[in-house]
């Protein structure tokens, strides 16, 4: 057991936990932040992605001790001052979620990608950089569009390919 302190979504938290506690267990079970999801045991699915000091990480493969003293942001803390993050809005606008289980991980991954990727975001980059997040519902088509749309909004760029600008091609 150890007393673990960290900042979660801007709030300082301290709890006595077992050393073998994973960050995701700490978030879900101790802090009741159940938006971060456990989808696999092998660091493959990405449902558990959070930001640690602004950097994306799969929280099922981080010990709570490894995150001690850091600043963790979860899906519950992404909206600022009651205003949804542009990517949250884009997910809704572009129908980038269906069941919603992988969605928190997708949004956290996408938000970090938009914030940190040094080059231009295009379909190829998004597909390559997001490969660590699985979705079983959407076939990824609309998630790609949501990330590109929010990326353009945040970075002040334009999406030139019309097939990438709308959520789907209407007949």
């Amino acid at each position: 057991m150890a007393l673990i302190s960290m900042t979660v979504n801007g709030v300082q938290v301290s709890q006595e936990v077992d050393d073998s506690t994973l960050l995701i267990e700490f978030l879900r079970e101790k802090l009741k932040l159940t938006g971060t999801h456990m989808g696999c045991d092998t660091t493959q699915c990405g449902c558990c992605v959070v930001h640690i000091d602004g950097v994306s990480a799969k929280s099922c493969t981080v010990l709570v001790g490894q995150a001690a003293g850091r600043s963790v942001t979860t899906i519950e803390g992404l909206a600022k001052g009651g205003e949804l993050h542009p990517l949250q809005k884009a997910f809704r606008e572009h129908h980038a979620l269906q069941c919603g289980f992988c969605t928190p991980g997708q949004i956290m991954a996408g938000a970090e990608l938009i914030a940190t990727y040094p080059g231009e975001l295009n379909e190829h980059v998004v597909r390559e950089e997001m490969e660590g997040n699985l979705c079983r519902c959407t076939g990824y088509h609309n998630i790609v569009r949501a990330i590109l749309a929010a990326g353009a909004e945040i970075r002040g760029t334009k999406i030139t390919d019309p097939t990438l600008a709308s959520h789907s091609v209407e007949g």
Partner: protein
Amino acid sequence: MYPFTYHRPKTIAEAQQAFSEGMDATFLSGGHTLLPTLKQRLAAPSDLIDVTGIPEMQGIEEAGGFLKIGAATTHDTVFASPIVRRLIPALSGLAGSIGDRHVRHRGTIGGSTANNDPSADYPSAVLGLGATVITDRREMASDDFFVGLYETAREPGEIVTRIDFPVPDIACYAKFRSPASRYSIVAVFVSKTGSAVRVAVTGAGASGVFRLPEFEEALSADFRPEAIAHLTVDPDMLLSDMSATAEYRADLIRVMARRAVEKPGQIQSFK
């Protein structure tokens, strides 16, 4: 996971002490191989010693003709480093091709090298560049360091602290990834320094990473793809599993080696 005690030493001496005090201690770096293993309850160490808080194990520098990378440096840091990009762009590219971006944010060069997973990328660069592995007690040539599947010449408690890469004239890397695991089923790292060429293969060997002397000889004489076009690889010593048979791996080694040499200075990832 089975219960264990977590330690986060600030110095190598503290790490050594924690190791000697633990019943069955093990070192933790990025944890992206170790923690999944523990979650599947395939190992039960008494103590996990996290080495990522030790300052001297961090950082990238150029010194004395070497590119020196602290063992606890993450894949993402290696990938993004301007020094690495300038000196050995293929190594930067290799780091940027490991796992996915979240994994690259956590996994480290030392962890990957010390674990010697047969499908990990880094061992091929360490061996393919003839790097020196620095530990808390000695220096080892890469040819002596990798011993077998998940096995290295490390002694119990020995900590890999840094890896020194000699800067080659040119290096290149080509890999083919499993459609399921996304690990390499074959990856070939080629480097050329003067007339010396090293060709190292990961993902495929039944005993882990290995070199291809025939390919090295041919490329030493003539560093062009045509020089190795006629060579084949014996499938006998290769892994065989659901995603790739030994014969497939053997053929892919040939193809990846050629493709690597076709684009010197670059990294190519196929899937």
